[in-house]
């Protein structure tokens, strides 16, 4: 793909694209440090998402920290005939593998273990590459960003499984299922990574492209 040394971006011609309704607005240089709002839909205008790298890093690190208790602490506690058994996410996966329902084991493993990690590593990679003004395959990196945006929601599966188990299995002394503390941290990981993907601005990938070409 031929690279245009100074591509015609909205920023290069002092326009701001509204992140909500996509209307382009002209911004005077005197408005640089003032809050400007879209004349059509009223959303706050930003040429780039504010403090994108700092915010995204903070959220990614927070999610990495939450990921540990989410996996170590039990997500469910089954009380059956007075005996209690706690399950973590991984022990649930192992249970399904042992009982032969490996497609379900795969679904839980991918949604609860693999996807959050993939998302966190991809976002870290994107952040580092933007900070180093990397020239490496901007189009593919934009695609990585789209992946992080699309897959995050599927991690919520395990939280929903717990919700349904808790609702159904309330059989008094026979068997009850309670949510464990791992569920709180796990829900935290999912929510925080969704906010992290939202706060990252893919246009930074392309801005770095330009600044290097000018040198």
């Amino acid at each position, binding site marked *: 793909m031929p690279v245009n040394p100074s591509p015609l971006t909205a920023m290069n011609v002092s326009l701001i694209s509204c*992140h909500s309704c996509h*209307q382009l607005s002209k911004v005077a240089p005197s408005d640089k440090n003032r809050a400007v709002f879209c004349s059509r839909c009223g959303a706050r205008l930003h040429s780039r998402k504010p403090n994108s790298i700092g915010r995204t890093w903070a959220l990614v690190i927070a999610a990495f920290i939450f990921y540990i208790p989410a996996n170590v602490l039990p997500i469910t506690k089954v009380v059956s005939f007075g005996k209690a058994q706690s399950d973590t996410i991984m022990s649930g996966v192992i249970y399904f593998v042992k009982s032969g329902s490996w497609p379900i084991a795969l679904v839980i493993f991918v949604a609860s273990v693999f996807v959050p990690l993939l998302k966190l590593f991809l976002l870290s990679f994107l952040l580092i590459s933007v900070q180093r003004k990397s020239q490496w395959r901007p*189009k593919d990196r934009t695609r990585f960003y789209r992946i992080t945006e699309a897959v995050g929601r599927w991690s*919520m599966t395990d939280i929903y499984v717990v919700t349904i*188990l*808790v609702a159904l*299995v*309330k059989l008094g002394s026979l068997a009850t299922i309670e949510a464990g503390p791992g569920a709180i941290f796990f829900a935290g990981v999912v929510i925080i990574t969704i906010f992290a993907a*939202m706060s990252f601005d893919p246009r930074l990938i392309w801005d770095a492209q330009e600044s290097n070409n000018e040198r």
Partner: protein
Amino acid sequence: MGRYTKFIIACHECDLLHQSQSLPVGGTARCVRCGAALYRHRPNSLDRVLALTVAGLILFIIANIYPFLTFRIEAQIQETNLMTGIIELYHQGMWIVAGVVLITTILMPLLQLTGMLFILVPLKFQRRPWKLALLFRTVRSFRPWGMTEVFMIGILVAGVKLVKMASIIPGTALYAFMILIFVLAASAVALDPHIVWKELD
């Protein structure tokens, strides 16, 4: 300057400027640099979304009133609806998790459907909807938080987990909820947001 910028659109993923062009039916305009979808041509967009929104609200009500899943183990029967798990989590002190589930499976779909109804019904009768800009902006920002389709996978996994110890009987609400997922997806595909924004010009 507004006269010129009306026909120009910046890619929301790489900021490159493009000239808007009319598209064939069902066509998508993509950014030449990064490949992001810029805008799509959606035939009868607003009528379709209105029809799907009304259908969605009816399904939503059914999904919340009727029994969702019934769990039977010998003589014991445990009937649940959509809210049961959320209430149970709350009673167990897991109010954060209960809140997350409530927002992503019930509140967000409801707010999106009613928000679109408040926008589309007046537009259908050529009236300016009340606080259109704020309302549509809010409804659009809710999109990532409605997770009904993920909830369906959760039901499937929980079903497989419990099927060995008891029988699980799907209720009316479950069927309504499954159709609701498709209706929500179809209305997301059918909507051309630029038509609504142009109402504000």
